[in-house]
C-alpha cells in the first residue's frame, strides 16, 4: 500500500533519515532493544532511534568480537565504526544478553559517543524488589540523560511522552489486529516495515502517519480477501528480513502475529496512568511479555506463545532466531514442546543478517506449509 512507502524508505536508508533529523537540529539518542524507555528520551526533547545491523559486509567489527557474537551486535558496531552513526548524540544499552553488554563496553571504548548509558535492568521481573529496583534504575537514566542534554525532564513532560507512546503502541496493535482479522488486507512486508520504521521515525509525525495507514485499512477491511493462506505466527528476537514475508506468502501461508522484539513485544501493554510516571513506565516492562534475557516465571514465555497461537487461530509457528543468540536457543526446546503438546507444528530457522539461499528457504517453507 502506498501509505507504507515512507516507512519502507526509512528502513531502506536509516542513516540518511537520521542525518536529516540531525541537520534539523534534533538531538538523537540511539538505542538497542525494546527495553529502552523511549518515553524518557522523548521527554528530554531528544529523538529515540533504534539501531540495527548495517547490512554491510563486516570490515571493522570483527577486530573486536569473537566469532560467536550475533549479526545484530556485529552489524551495529560495524555501522558505528564505519562512521554511519555519526549523527547520534548518544547510545543506550539496556542490560539484556551478554553480547549486548559487551557491545556496550566495546562501544564505549571505540565508538566514543558523547553520551553512553547502560540501563542495568533487573533480570528477574516477578518480585517486588525488582519493581522498586527497576524504578531506581530508570530514575538514574532520567537524571543522567537530563544532565547530559542540559535539560530538565519534568513529570509533566514524561506524562506527555507516555501519552504519545501509548498512542503509537495502540496504533501498531490495531495494525496487527487488522492484519490478523483480514490477512489479505496488507502484505506482511508492509506490516514489517511499518512497525520497524516506527522505531526510527520522528514520533510526532508517526502519531499522524500511523492513523493514516489504519484509516485506509479500516476502509478496505470489508472487501478484503478473507483467505490469504494458512495462518502462522513468527517468534524470536529481531527480524531483519522483509523477504521472509514474501517467501511465506508465496508458499501459501500468511503471518498473522508475532512474538518479536521488533514486533509485538514493542507495542504490547500500555503504560498505565499513574501519579508517578517513572513507576508507570517501570510497570509496563514488568507486565509486558518478556524476552528470553528476562525472567517472569518459568513457563511465561511458552504460555504467552501458546496464547498468541490459539487466539490468532494459527496453524503453525516459525521460530526465527539469529545465529548465536543463546537466550532464544535455550528457551526453544521447551517452547517447542509446549506447541507439540497442543499439536501445533513448528519450524526453527537460524539466520544471520543475510538470509540463506532463497531456493533452500523456499523448500523449507513450502514443505512446512504443506505439513500444516
Amino acid at each position, binding site marked *: 500500500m502506498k501509505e507504507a512507502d515512507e516507512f519502507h524508505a526509512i528502513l531502506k536508508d536509516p542513516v540518511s533519515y537520521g542525518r536529516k533529523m540531525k541537520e534539523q537540529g534534533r538531538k538523537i539518542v540511539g538505542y538497542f532493544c525494546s527495553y529502552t524507555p523511549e518515553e524518557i528520551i522523548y521527554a528530554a526533547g531528544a529523538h529515540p532511534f533504534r539501531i540495527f545491523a548495517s547490512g554491510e559486509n563486516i570490515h571493522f567489527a570483527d577486530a573486536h568480537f569473537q566469532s560467536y557474537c550475533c549479526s545484530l551486535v556485529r552489524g551495529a558496531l560495524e555501522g558505528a565504526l564505519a562512521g554511519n552513526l555519526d549523527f547520534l548524540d548518544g547510545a543506550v544499552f539496556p542490560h539484556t544478553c551478554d553480547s549486548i553488554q559487551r557491545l556496550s563496553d566495546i562501544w564505549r571504548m571505540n565508538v566514543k559517543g558523547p553520551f553512553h548509558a547502560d540501563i542495568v535492568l533487573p533480570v528477574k521481573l516477578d518480585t517486588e524488589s525488582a519493581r522498586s529496583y527497576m524504578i531506581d534504575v530508570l530514575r538514574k537514566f532520567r537524571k543522567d540523560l537530563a544532565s547530559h542534554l542540559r535539560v530538565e525532564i519534568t513529570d509533566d513532560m514524561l506524562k506527555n511522552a507516555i501519552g504519545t507512546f501509548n498512542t503509537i503502541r495502540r496504533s501498531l496493535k490495531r495494525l496487527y489486529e487488522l492484519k490478523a482479522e483480514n490477512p489479505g488486507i496488507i502484505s506482511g512486508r508492509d506490516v514489517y516495515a511499518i512497525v520497524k520504521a516506527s522505531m526510527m521515525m520522528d514520533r510526532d509525525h508517526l502519531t499522524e502517519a500511523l492513523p493514516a495507514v489504519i484509516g485506509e485499512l479500516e476502509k478496505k477491511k470489508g472487501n478484503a480477501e478473507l483467505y490469504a493462506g494458512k495462518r502462522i505466527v513468527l517468534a524470536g528476537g529481531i527480524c531483519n528480513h522483509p523477504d521472509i514475508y514474501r517467501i511465506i506468502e508465496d508458499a501459501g501461508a500468511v503471518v498473522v502475529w508475532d512474538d518479536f522484539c521488533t514486533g509485538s513485544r514493542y507495542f504490547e501493554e500500555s503504560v498505565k496512568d499513574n501519579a508517578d510516571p517513572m513507576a508507570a513506565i517501570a510497570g509496563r516492562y514488568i507486565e509486558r511479555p518478556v524476552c528470553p534475557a528476562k525472567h517472569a516465571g518459568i513457563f511465561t514465555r511458552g504460555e504467552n506463545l501458546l496464547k498468541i497461537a490459539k487466539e490468532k487461530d494459527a496453524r503453525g509457528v516459525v521460530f526465527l532466531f539469529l545465529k548465536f543468540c543463546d537466550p532464544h536457543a535455550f528457551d526453544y526446546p521447551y517452547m517447542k514442546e509446549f506447541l507439540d503438546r497442543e499439536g501445533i*507444528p513448528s519450524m526453527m530457522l537460524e539466520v544471520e543478517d543475510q538470509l*540463506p*539461499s532463497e*531456493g*533452500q528457504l*523456499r*523448500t*523449507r517453507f*513450502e*514443505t512446512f506449509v*504443506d*505439513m500444516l
Partner: protein
Amino acid sequence: MITAGIDIGSITTKAAVMAEGKIRGTKVVFTGYNAEQAGTKVYEELLAELGMEKSDVGRIVSTGYGRNSVKFMDKAMTEIICHGAGAHYLNPRARSVIDIGGQDSKAIVLDEKGKVKNFAMNDKCAAGTGRFLEVMARALEVDLDGFGTLSLRAGDPSRISSLCTVFAESEVISLISKGENRENIIAGIHESIAARIAAMANRLRIAPLVVMTGGVAKNIGVVKALERKIGMAVEVSEYAQVNGAIGAAFLAAGLK
C-alpha cells in the same frame, strides 16, 4: 493413468514414469547449467525409451531445487515432500528418510501414510553433501563410484576433523602427503559425513524403519558408517537416486 515425476537436483536430474501405481521406467541425466533444459531432456528421453508420447501422460509433478524452472508440470512440490512419498511408496514401513543430495542433506520423519511429520535440512555448508564427496574424490584421484567399496577395505579409518569442505580437503591432502592409504582416508571421509547427518537425524528423533535416498545412498561406505552412528539399520532401495522422482510421479496420481 500414466503419471511422471521430474526431480531437478543441483547435480543430476531424474525422471520417473508410473502407470496405474507401477514404476514403468526411470532415468538420470546431469543437470548442468540449464535446469529447464535438463528437466525437458530427461523427460523426453525417458518417454522415448518407454515408447510413449507426451499425450499419454496424464499428470506431471516436478520437484527438486529446479522444480519451478520447467513449465510443463501440473504442480511443483518440494523434494522433502516427494522423497517422503517415494520412500513410502517403495516401502510403506518407512518412517524416516535420510536424503543426501548434491548440495544439501535432509532428515525427514513420516507418518504411516508417508506424509511429512517433521524435517531438518542442512543447507548451511557443503559438509555432509554429495558435493563434499566429489571434492574429496578429486583430491584422491579416485572415481566416485569406487568410493564405497574401497572404504570397506579400510583397516583404520583416518580422522577428518574439519567440518568445512575446503579445510577438510586440505586435511585430506596432508594425509595423502603423510602416506596414509586411500582406503583409510576414504573411510574417514565417510565417517565425517555420517557424523554430520547423524547429528541432524538424532535431533529430529528419527525412528525405524530408516530409508536412505539421494545419490549418496549408492555409496555403501556412507550407508554403513551412518548405520553405526545412528544405531539403526538403514535400507537403500535400488531406486534410491530416483526416489524423489518416483515420489513426484506417485503424488501426481493423487492430484485433484
